[in-house]
């Protein structure tokens, strides 16, 4: 497979064409907004967090195929997981995108398709936008700022590396 096809796998394009998690979430109690100033990608997450478990997530992402697909996969994956589990998952995805994992873990499901992005370093931020926004939103919620607007910048991104 040529690297372009590695990045734009059919799974990715499918999520891009019909993103999951677009259903409005009236019960949501956490809102997080992320922005990638270098691309202009915008994401808004609404999370229904109850008993420390993410009951459901609404994702509204305006951006490139990679950021939209990543957000769509997030919506599919994090439902029913605890904050700690989601945090762990986000770390694994980051490692995978940075090429720090020998192999793509089996338990990632569709998310494993994001592995191809690692060959395009400038696009890694796109794949991470949804995840960084989610984790920061949950962090802020835990710290007592349930509606804190979160701006994810490229500089911000480096802090996590």
């Amino acid at each position, binding site marked *: 497979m*040529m690297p372009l096809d590695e990045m*734009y796998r059919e799974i990715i394009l499918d999520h891009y064409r019909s993103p999951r998690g677009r259903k409005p979430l009236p019960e949501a109690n956490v809102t997080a907004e992320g922005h990638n100033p270098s691309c*202009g*990608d915008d994401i808004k997450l609404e999370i229904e967090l109850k008993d420390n478990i993410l009951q459901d997530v609404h994702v509204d992402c305006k*951006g*490139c*195929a*990679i950021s939209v697909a990543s957000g769509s996969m997030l919506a599919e994956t994090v439902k029913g997981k605890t904050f700690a589990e989601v945090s762990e998952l986000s770390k694994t995805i980051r490692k995978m995108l940075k090429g720090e994992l020998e192999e793509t873990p089996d338990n990632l499901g569709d998310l494993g398709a994001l592995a191809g992005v690692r060959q395009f370093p400038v*696009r890694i931020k796109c794949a991470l936008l949804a995840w960084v926004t989610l984790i920061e939103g949950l962090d802020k919620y835990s710290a007592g700022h349930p509606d804190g607007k979160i701006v994810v910048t490229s500089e911000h991104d480096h802090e996590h590396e």
Partner: protein
Amino acid sequence: MTDMASQTHNDPVTAPPRAVGLDIERVKADFPILTQQINGHRLVYLDSAATSQKPREVINAILEYYRKMNSNIHRGLHTLAERATEAYEATRVHTARFVGGVQPEEIIFTRGTTESINLVAYTWGEQNISKGDEILVSEMEHHANFVPWFELARRKGAIIRKLPITLCGHLDLSEIDTLINEKTKLVAVSHMSNVFGTINPIRDIAAKAHEKGALILADGAQASPHLPIDLRALGVDFYAFSSHKMLGPTGVGVLYGRKELLEAMPPFNFGGEMINQVGFDKVTFADLPNKFEGGTPNIADVIAFEAALSYLEGLGMENVHAHETAITKYALERLSEIQGLEIQGPQDTAERGSAISFTDPDIHPHDISTFLDYKGIAIRAGHHCAQPLMKFLGKVATARASFYIYNDTADVDALVDALREMRRYFGV
């Protein structure tokens, strides 16, 4: 795919234009970088509005400088220093001639357009802008001609007024007589938009500004590589542009300022080179242009910039402009064959330069750029440092292809073919 699929790239809507006065094959051969392959394809460089490629003459001039005359300028009393000083000052004289014959001391070398504009904001602006004054800034400005004024206004309690744009990508001048008023101290406007490609009526706006006693600064970063420039005829007070967009090296910018304005302005960078006498009781500053060139300047690249000016003059700026008008016309026609593609800016090539911004209804500009790169085609995608303009368009980003002297109709065809293939690839 659309019904356009039946139309191959071999039968475009019009016959490819003949280059006017330019032998593009010969021009191409002067640019060593263009001979390479990118991802297995011939490099098609369509990002000259970001930075141009450099002809062999410019690359050699940098090597020659370091091989034969490297030394610090102005106060050296040895042969090398004399050579370097002479070449550096010769570039100033040449630049003054290139922009229509201004006085050499009205040409200040900076690091780039951004620094040129900041120089004016921090010297003239600090001295002349007060609380309640107005600065009129167009809605299509690059951040380089927006943020310095925004920050100056914030420091001074001055007001930024917006010179709006129309949906066709022109400045909306219908309210210009009230937008420029007695409170207006400066009008900041680009000569050519880096997003729309629009060529703005600088001469008319300058006249309006001067009627009300305001000054005008034109951002010439996009215009200077492509148009014959006559600053006296334009009637501008300040004009800023960059070497690297007009075949020269990076790290060299030009600020033109009318002599009496520059003379009245305080220095920008304080230090060596820019002084007359220094003592513990008193410091006096050098005359123009040294007053604004504190510290050792970018000697090598300024000198190599002269090779770029000579190269452009060798082609003739009228010919450069004619070639680009032809290629832009061809590109606009061919791109309009692609169904759904939304092209920004004026359609009439008499009103625009060669930067063409476009969006696909289904594919994000970053995906467009990544896909095209895979075909060896370099374009730009993003907000183009013009977020107020993107907001006006209601878009977060556009894709932009920009053409220069080394681009031909085959490059346009490669772009159009790749954009069609892209829509098939993404299945939209």
